[in-house]
């Protein structure tokens, strides 16, 4: 029987939730890395026991953690060239937290500034890793989306990291401005049908695509409209909150933007709005059913300043028509006095026959549905604020 492993990153540590395929009884492991912010954890599809975690602190900066046994034990994978592999105490050596922007003439462009909130030039400063995306082909290759926005890659299991400088250097990088959460690269989609294609998204710059394995990039924001910027149809400057796709149909992308739920049928070359009858088209998460590529999920959030569900009712909205026509999913979710948020990387789906859907809240609840959203139940209720949720379906 298949099992499910849910990887939960929170403000104060990581938690791993496991269940069999019925998804009724859950074991909770954690907190791992107690007291640290865990922005994201994700397992390799090549080797599901290989899990990468982004551990961060405002005081002590970035740490990369890796598990090779499904989250039971963790270590920092870094080993400097020529250095011993362990310290005198037997601890692993580490430079796995070293993210240095490529400013060389040879491999990138000496891009030194982006725009600050007030439009003035501001130097690029590494702050944290928002998202880790393991390769579809190699467990030792993993991509990292960082703040200030750039894309890094490790090909040695997270020991060392190199920037893919063509993204920041493609031409619009100096115009990028941070959103309220920072200038973060938060979404990385790897195309299973075209290994050279990758889509990433940055708040508040927009979405970008490479078709040559990350060497060159272009903005893919045509059709996005943002009233809060001087040119609402600008090439960049859109606050994209999250992008999702079904791996079986990777040219169809769904986007939750600061305002508007959007759809592209040409891998991002053009977008059109599919917000339809949503009570608000603001939100952070968006995801796609594992087996029904026209079934998508969002959690509408009241904004601009409130950032909690409308009317105090936590509702997942599902469209079975690829957008525009939405139904509220409420069975098992609090329908009064609920004022939590669901952050951009905090929803995921499993790939069991009856697709499971999971999301975490800033109130510390992780909800799961084993029937594609028809009914919900809390897996855990009282974790620290949830930053990210990923799911592994284990055969």
């Amino acid at each position, binding site marked *: 029987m298949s099992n499910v492993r849910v990887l939960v990153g929170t*403000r104060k540590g990581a938690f791993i939730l496991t269940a069999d395929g019925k998804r009724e009884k859950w074991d909770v492991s954690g907190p791992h890395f*107690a*007291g*640290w912010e865990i922005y994201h954890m994700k397992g390799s599809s090549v080797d599901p026991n290989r899990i990468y975690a982004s551990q961060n*602190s*405002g*005081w*002590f*900066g*970035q*740490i990369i953690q890796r598990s090779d046994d499904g989250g039971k034990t963790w270590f*920092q994978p*870094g080993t*400097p060239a020529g*250095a011993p592999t362990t*310290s*005198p*105490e037997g*601890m*692993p*050596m*580490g*430079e796995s*937290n*070293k993210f*240095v922007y490529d400013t060389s003439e040879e491999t990138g462009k000496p891009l030194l500034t982006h725009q600050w909130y007030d439009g003035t030039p501001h130097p690029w400063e590494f702050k944290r890793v928002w998202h880790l995306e393991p390769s579809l082909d190699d467990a030792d290759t993993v991509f990292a989306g960082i703040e200030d926005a750039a894309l890094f890659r490790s090909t040695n299991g997270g020991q060392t990291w190199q920037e893919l400088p063509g993204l920041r250097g493609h031409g619009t990088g100096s115009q990028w401005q941070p959103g309220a959460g920072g200038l973060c690269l938060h979404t990385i989609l790897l195309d299973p049908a075209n290994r050279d294609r990758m889509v990433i998204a940055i708040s508040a710059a927009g979405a970008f695509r490479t078709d040559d394995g990350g060497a060159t990039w272009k903005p893919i924001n045509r059709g996005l409209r943002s009233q809060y910027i001087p040119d609402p149809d600008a090439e960049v400057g859109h606050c994209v909150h999250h992008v999702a796709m079904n791996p079986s149909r990777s040219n169809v992308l769904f986007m939750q933007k600061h305002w508007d739920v959007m759809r592209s049928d040409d891998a991002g070359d053009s977008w059109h709005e599919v917000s339809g009858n949503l009570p608000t088209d603001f939100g952070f998460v968006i995801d796609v059913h594992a087996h029904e590529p026209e079934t998508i999920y969002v959690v509408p959030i009241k904004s601009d300043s409130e950032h909690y569900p409308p009317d105090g009712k936590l509702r997942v909205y599902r469209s079975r028509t690829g957008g525009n026509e939405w139904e509220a999913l409420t069975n098992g979710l609090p329908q009064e006095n609920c004022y939590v948020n669901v952050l951009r990387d905090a929803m995921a789906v499993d790939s069991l026959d009856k697709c499971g859907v999971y999301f975490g809240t800033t109130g510390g609840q992780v909800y799961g549905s084993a029937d594609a959203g028809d009914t919900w139940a809390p897996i855990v209720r009282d974790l620290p604020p949830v930053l990210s949720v990923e799911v592994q379906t284990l055969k």
Partner: protein
Amino acid sequence: MIVVVLPAHLRSLAGVTGDVELELDGPVTRHAILDALEARFPMLRGTIREHVGGQRRPLLRFFACGEDVTHEPADAPLPEAIVSGAEPFYIIGAIAGG
């Protein structure tokens, strides 16, 4: 022997439960203490000083014998009580809620 007191987060990261004891050759300075600390606990690289440029992370400060030495030159000699190990060298994170 130098005694270093780490913040709790860094103790857990380094895998130690108490104060850290270091042997230093040469002058005992903040720079030398941090170099020795990072050599013995490589997982602390980048957590106290930035990888690039070596700047102190902004929410950390250094204390010796009750004095804030954060803004003293990194290569300035530290007090004899630190050199002898009679007093610990403190690495302290800013107090904050949440």
